[in-house]
């Protein structure tokens, strides 16, 4: 049977991708950030999964205001890196896992989560930056990826509790897939940041630190943070943290924290990262 072994939380700041693509990772500005991911890459070399279920948000790339799915699952064979206005990132094409994706789709919809099914989609930095951070710059990504896009562009996104419960449904679906696969689930975006208006640049280290602590030990308390609380405390784009709760909902109640990293700033954003393992 498929086995969910670990969850990863990871910000997806576009400037991080640009730094890697333009060979700037050795710049003093970026060195501390990439150092924080060195243990992650070592861990990943020992724990490369067969499939990553990758939760992210599209940034007005694949979805305009013409269609705005709250939850969209990518069921295609492959997903091309999108041209976000300055040409596609020079990273490998993302290979999907249509069999597992379809299985999860059917199972999760039958658990009352009405997913939008996507069979053709380009993926933007929200998805490719975490892959770059965890895997570096390989010729091909070392595993299959199921993209799972969450609307956090038009208010309201799904609630934290809805996301957490969805994570639990995704876990049940993975557990019931009849193939011997090592699966990881990644929740991306966050942490505190605000990209718009006179309050742009907001960072709340206290909020972020508590969020990271409780993500490990008491995730259910995080499901009670309201949208307005996220915006007020963690900035208008800090609301992306609901995506981390899908990841956490899929893991065991008790997890082992393997690695934690927090850094300010990457461009306008507080970068948070964590690796959590299920008990073996």
């Amino acid at each position, binding site marked *: 049977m498929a086995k969910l072994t670990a969850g990863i939380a990871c910000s997806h700041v*576009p*400037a991080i991708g640009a730094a890697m693509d333009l060979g700037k990772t050795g710049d003093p500005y970026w060195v501390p950030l990439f150092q924080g991911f060195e243990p992650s890459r070592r861990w990943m070399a020992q724990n490369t999964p067969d499939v990553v279920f990758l939760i992210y948000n599209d*940034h*007005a*790339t694949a979805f*305009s*205001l*013409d269609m705005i799915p709250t939850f969209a699952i990518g069921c295609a064979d492959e997903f091309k890196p999108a*041209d*976000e*206005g*300055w040409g596609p990132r020079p990273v490998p094409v993302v290979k999907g896992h249509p069999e597992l994706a379809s299985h999860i789709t059917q199972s999760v919809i039958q658990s009352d989560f009405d997913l939008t099914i996507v069979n053709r989609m380009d993926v933007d930095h929200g998805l490719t930056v975490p892959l770059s951070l965890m895997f570096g710059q390989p010729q091909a990504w070392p595993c299959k990826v199921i993209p799972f896009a969450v609307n956090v*562009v*038009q*208010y*309201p996104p799904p609630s934290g509790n809805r996301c957490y419960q969805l994570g639990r449904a995704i876990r049940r679906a993975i557990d019931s897939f009849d193939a011997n696969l090592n699966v990881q689930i990644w929740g991306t975006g966050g942490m*505190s940041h*605000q*990209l*718009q*208006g*006179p*309050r*742009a*640049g*907001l*960072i*709340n*280290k*206290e*909020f972020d630190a*508590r969020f990271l602590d*409780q993500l490990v030990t008491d995730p259910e*308390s*995080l499901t*009670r*943070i309201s*949208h*307005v*609380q996220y*915006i*007020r*405390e963690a*900035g*208008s784009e800090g609301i992306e943290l609901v995506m981390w709760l899908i990841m956490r909902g899929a893991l065991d109640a008790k997890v082992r924290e393997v690695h934690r990293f927090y850094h*300010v*700033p990457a*461009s*306008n954003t*507080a970068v948070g990262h964590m690796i959590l393992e299920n008990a073996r």
Partner: protein
Amino acid sequence: MSLEKPYLDIPGTTVFDADLARKGYHLNSFCMSLMEVDNRRRFKANERAYLDEWQMTEDQKQGVLARDYNRLIELGGNIYFLAKIFATDGKSFQHAAALMTGMSQEAYAEMMLNGGRSPEQGGACKAPEIK
């Protein structure tokens, strides 16, 4: 009964909700069109003429011409869509963020290096205990 909007009092922050999304649909669709290189070329060649192809209000068009992102947000622009405009100008997110705060890009970058705008500066109330 009208919708509850408990986010209207958050300082310096506009929440892109259903009403603004409706108001900004054509503005954001114009922004989205700049994803294509031919459209970027046509827009750069004659901004006003390109804008006139879209069902935008005159205020929205003026906002684009002036690159007044705070005004565009009030008029229904969403930051991820507006990003297509400053990307077309070859400007970074940090450039646009600095502009919206009224700071120079240097001062804004310095603030971020020093840990960003604190919640106190940003007018956020103190984080309540999560129970």
